[in-house]
């Protein structure tokens, strides 16, 4: 077996792995969001895919991400309000 890493290297590797894990989470969210924004019914790419995106599809895709995240934050707020209201 290999001799062990010294403490500084272990720390560096731990930080590296944390960063990689964070970036894997972001990647996985991007896959999920691409699916949500692509698919019908609220998706942006309706009908057969063309040679390029129409300007409508392009702005829809750009807006889709922000609106999905807005919805998510909005729903969290709604739940908090319900809880405060003694629900």
């Amino acid at each position, binding site marked *: *077996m*290999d*001799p*062990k*890493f*010294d403490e500084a*290297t*272990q720390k*560096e*590797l*731990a930080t*590296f*792995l944390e960063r*990689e894990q964070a*970036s*894997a989470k*972001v*990647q*996985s*969210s*991007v*896959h999920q*969001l*691409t*699916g949500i*924004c*692509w*698919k019908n019914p609220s998706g*942006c*790419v309706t009908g*057969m*895919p*063309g*040679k*390029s*995106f129409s300007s409508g599809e*392009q702005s829809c*895709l*750009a807006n*889709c*991400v*922000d609106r999905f*995240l807005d919805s998510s934050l909005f729903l969290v707020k709604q739940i908090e309000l319900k809880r405060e209201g003694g629900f």
Partner: protein
Amino acid sequence: MSSFLSSTTGAAPPQDMAARKEAMMNAVRQEMAIQNAQELMNKANERCFAKCVTKPSGSLTSSEETCLSRCLDRYLEAFTMVSKAYTARIGRERDARLASQ
């Protein structure tokens, strides 16, 4: 995690250790890239098949192939656009959080 990082006893010479560290980091990076590419291909296949091959016949028709090829290009483009939009949003949220502190 810690047992994975410190497998056995005894310290390694610094150069050897640096090389092993780099090798480990590169292996992780490569594994991540492969996972990501696989996920992208799986999702693109699923979604483009649904769009382009609505009635599976004896073989893929040329129009289905044209559709699949365009669909893959558009899916990759959409992925890039979503990735940019998401990264930009994360940046904005972080700035807002820092500004409010």
